[in-house]
């Protein structure tokens, strides 16, 4: 199984643990992720206004390169995935954007949205299959109570992202189930973590994180998993700024648990009092 792979800036700098564990696990699963040669920053946010064409170019370059390679494009960072997926949808459905982008890029073969981009979790679910994944687990995470945190970017807008049911998703819970863990359902799993508000409106973001973490905690979770470097930073760092001042729950990238369940690393830390 072979895919083109788009890493994005953050996985090469602050979220190296996410990339490292994801690539190691993919290799053990027999999945070849070939990093694209000339990828550029996706821009981190999808422009919500209709007249910012330049911001679409890097996504289109990567989508076109994957198409030329005859492969699906795989992303790991939730933000990159959001931007590239929405850009692909836009170029497929908006004639004006399609013409302007192609007029500018002058690719050998115009790009019309015929390629496809999938997130690593979708790759596991739809390409490998969670049943197949479960067969390959060497160290099942039996008895571990893990809460999935989805955030915004993978789920919404639901019709375009087509990732899962945006109001009641199950892909990460199903993934945890395949690893042998117990998934903890809690009301705040699809709420926003405060994104970049942690930078200039820290209190607002801290309140949001507190709600998410204390909700997961009160439903019995011993750890949280996520798929986005910014969610990860907020959930980890802003927990320390809440009134009680110390983190309630450890936070992992979903790929770290995958790595552990595949027998590729030591056990990740959990809250001992929750065992």
């Amino acid at each position, binding site marked *: 199984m072979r895919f083109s792979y788009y890493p994005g800036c953050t996985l090469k700098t602050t979220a190296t643990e996410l990339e490292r564990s994801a690539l190691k696990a993919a290799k053990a699963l027999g999945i070849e992720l070939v990093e694209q040669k000339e990828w550029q920053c996706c821009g981190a946010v999808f422009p*919500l206004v209709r007249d910012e064409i330049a911001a679409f170019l890097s996504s289109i370059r990567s989508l076109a390169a994957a198409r030329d390679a005859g492969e699906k494009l795989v992303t790991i960072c939730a933000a990159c995935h959001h931007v590239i997926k929405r850009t692909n949808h836009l170029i497929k459905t908006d004639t004006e954007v399609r013409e302007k982008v192609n007029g500018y890029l002058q690719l050998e073969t115009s790009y019309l949205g015929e390629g496809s981009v999938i997130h690593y979790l979708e790759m596991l679910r739809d390409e490998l299959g969670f049943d197949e994944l479960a067969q390959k687990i060497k160290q099942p995470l039996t008895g571990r109570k893990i809460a999935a945190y989805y955030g915004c970017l993978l789920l919404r807008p639901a019709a375009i992202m087509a990732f899962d049911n945006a109001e009641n998703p199950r892909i990460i819970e199903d993934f945890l189930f395949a690893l042998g863990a117990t998934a903890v359902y809690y009301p705040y799993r699809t709420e926003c973590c405060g994104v970049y508000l942690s930078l200039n409106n820290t209190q607002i973001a801290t309140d949001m994180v507190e709600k998410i973490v204390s909700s997961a905690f009160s439903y019995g979770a011993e750890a949280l998993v996520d798929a986005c470097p910014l969610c990860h930073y907020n959930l980890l760092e802003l927990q320390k700024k809440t009134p009680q001042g110390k983190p309630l729950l450890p936070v992992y990238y979903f790929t770290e648990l995958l790595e552990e369940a595949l027998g590729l690393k030591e056990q990740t830390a959990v809250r001992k009092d929750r065992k």
Partner: protein
Amino acid sequence: MKVSTEQLRSYILKDIAVISGENVVECYQCGKCTAACPVSKAMDILPHQVVRFLQLGMLDEVMESNTIWICASCFTCAGRCPRDVDVANIMEALRVILLRKRGVSRLKTEDVRLVFSEGMPEQGVVSAFRKFAR
């Protein structure tokens, strides 16, 4: 040529409609967007009120609010609107119109030095500058 305040206002309202792609007239003020919004508590004007002010052509109220700078583009409101009005797109159009006027920038380089050293991911810094500065 003289352009009256009224004319200018209607140009900006048209701009908002064009660059957001949203038609505020569709909104029937049910308030679901506000109920869905995770940061409405910190806003001085609530999401459904932003749409109402725009319906009434009351631009100043909206442009001077802190609401548009607090909206986190989480897209929850848009998913719950029974009239298919995407408030996240409207918020972005309002920010963009202000940011494109020279000198209006909500984030300074100095603001990020500290958080970078605390390990704030590139994704967060780039997003914040794309949303709050030009």
